[in-house]
């Protein structure tokens, strides 16, 4: 009985512990050796595929979009600083207020963020279920959707590059999820209206 494809792949994979039985079989089986050589050859051929040149003229668009997003991020950062400042003020006055629950009210709980994440995922699914048809759409609607999608992409990017989970990090994460939910709600509403307009 010959080795199967997964055993053969494992034999040429440095990440995987060697399969001594499969190796012993391949060492004395011309069919499996040929099979293995063909698989290795495919990897070589893929690595040897020529590089591709990107379409010309993309750079000005990239610079323009980066500028737009930088402005958007600037607004978000100002908001974050304001938020952080309010946290600092809140924390610093907490001892005078003497109410231990004050701080908990300012710092979002994990449960609150989790609820936002669940809402966001539910909206993802709801939007998915709507199956928007981009071919039948007014230009203005398409632009609105594109702007909202850009907004969601920007929030997703921020979420993917979040660092420490300190109190400010938790505030910012919570705020980003809140923004995502808001954007997804708007996106869903526009798509829902669009679907009704199409008569789905």
């Amino acid at each position, binding site marked *: 009985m010959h080795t199967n494809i*997964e055993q053969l792949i494992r034999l040429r994979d440095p*990440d995987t512990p060697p399969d001594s039985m499969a190796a012993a079989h391949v060492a004395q089986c011309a069919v499996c050796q040929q099979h293995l050589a063909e*698989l290795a050859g495919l*990897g070589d051929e*893929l690595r040897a*595929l020529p*590089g*591709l040149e990107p379409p010309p003229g993309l750079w000005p668009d990239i610079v323009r979009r980066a500028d737009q997003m930088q402005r958007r991020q600037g607004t978000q950062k100002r908001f974050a600083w304001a938020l952080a400042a309010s946290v600092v003020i809140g924390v610093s006055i907490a001892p005078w207020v003497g109410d231990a629950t004050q701080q908990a009210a300012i710092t979002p709980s994990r449960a609150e963020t989790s609820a936002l994440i669940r809402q966001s995922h539910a909206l993802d699914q709801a939007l998915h279920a709507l199956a928007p048809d981009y071919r039948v759409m007014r230009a203005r609607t398409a632009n609105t959707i594109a702007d909202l999608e850009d907004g*969601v992409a920007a929030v*997703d990017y921020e979420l993917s590059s979040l660092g420490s989970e300190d109190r400010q990090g938790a505030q910012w994460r919570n705020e980003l999820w809140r923004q995502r939910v808001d954007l997804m709600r708007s996106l869903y509403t526009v798509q829902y209206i669009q679907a009704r307009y199409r008569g789905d």
Partner: protein
Amino acid sequence: MSAFSDIQIAAEIVSRAQAGDTRAQESLYRTFAPATYTLLRRLSGGPDLARDLLQNTFVAVLLNLGNYRNEAPLGYWIRRIAVNQAMMYFRSPWHRKRQALPEVPDHESFPKLVSTPQPDLTDLASAFACLDHAARTVVWLHEVEGYTHSEIGTLLGKSASYSKTRLARALETLRKWREDQDGHRPCIQISNS
């Protein structure tokens, strides 16, 4: 070996680009765009999506260049952003090509070519582009870019075993396609449904 490993760029250009020098930023784009586009074209399977992802990648590069700390070669840093952009696209619910990552079936089945290569492009690149996106991702990142199965599994939100199995089956699909080519059998439409 990854095309990114061969790309050299002067540290001075990187510093100037980080400081906001637009000519240096453009030079950086010109240096890394071909390798990035090639990677995105292989992962996405088509030129239009690859162009969009390339734009998104370099927008993200420009926005985050100040955070680059020389801990890894710049090419690898850009590659990571490009791969993340592609993965974000594949996960996004609102894009047209939304399809869940296929689970690896228990029985002996292999990924099918999801679209027909153009008749005059019956080379390996065309056949590769016809694999589904998860298969393309696993094969390209492992075989060409040198990612480990564990890294690929994490990117796809799956296990390392998933990556191994997908790799084995996708390579076997390509090998069988190659066998058909050698036997002068045409590359035929295979429905994914």
